[in-house]
């Protein structure tokens, strides 16, 4: 699974996710990636989110939409919201994976409970950061 979230110069955030799913998946099985609210969500009222991992858990938790709701309705910082969903809720349910997020004010965040996630971030006036391992 791959994904990108972006904030443009007009202050608009957007999210995209694309995947092959899981090896030896039952044919017809659909994970969270194409499900708006689970693997992908974006609203200028909060943030844009893209997810990767065991899709069934991300669907059951509506991970992408819930992160946006925590930012919008509870005023959590972006990092606190992604950590709550990944390090607490997803982990407690037994799911594994990660998320990336960006907010209209330029906050960027990622969180994952696996041993690694291929990731990169770049922003106006900031050095690019690339990571693989925890």
């Amino acid at each position, binding site marked *: 699974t791959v994904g990108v979230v972006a904030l443009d*110069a007009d202050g*608009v955030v957007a999210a995209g996710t694309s995947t092959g799913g899981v090896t*030896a998946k039952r044919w017809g099985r659909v994970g969270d990636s194409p499900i*708006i609210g689970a693997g992908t969500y974006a609203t200028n009222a909060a943030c844009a989110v893209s997810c990767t991992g065991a899709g069934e858990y991300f669907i059951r938790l509506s991970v992408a939409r819930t992160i946006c709701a925590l930012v919008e309705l509870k005023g959590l910082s972006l990092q606190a919201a992604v950590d709550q969903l990944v390090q607490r809720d997803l982990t407690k349910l037994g799911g594994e994976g990660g998320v990336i997020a960006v907010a209209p004010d330029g906050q960027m965040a990622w969180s*994952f409970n696996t041993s690694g*996630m291929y990731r990169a971030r770049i*922003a106006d006036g900031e050095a690019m950061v*690339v990571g693989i391992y925890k």
Partner: protein
Amino acid sequence: MAKWALVAHGGAGVIERAHLRPEQDAAYREVMGRVAQAGAAVLKAGGAALDAIEAAIQILEDDPLFNAGRGAVFTAQGDIELDASIMDGGTLAAGAVAGVTRTRHPISAARAVMEHSPHVFLGGEGADAFARSQGLEAVEPSFFFTERRWKSLVRELERQGLPIPRRPAVAPAKEDARTALAHDEGKRG
């Protein structure tokens, strides 16, 4: 003018230093950096977040290092079924496709659903047919085939004691150097 920003991921899983040879580590870092720069180039030029996302994800879909597009994993039947979605935070417009097998860039198909149909989600052959009707690049399913993912499928099915599907007749005979760098991050159905 808002400050532009972009974050990308290439998948999460069992990815530890001990698992990646130095050349694999370098290859993944190089392409993640290239993906971020490609999206940033669109944003620096005043482009839309959606355009930056589509440009960046198309690179990832074409790179066999990642489980999306070319180099995606196989179903238990030996097919490649691709899913994608995209959403605009400014308008709450959204598009998604599931189970596409003949569209080179599923992220572009998802965007076409969002921008050129009254729907949010199209699945299966209907999604592929819609993508073709929008002039998106169609490919044979073998375009997505990589030996490394096929071997992962066979190992997984043997582990589960399930029948091994016939290897696609048009599968490329040999593995190219790029595909040989792919790390199997352990996503199992």
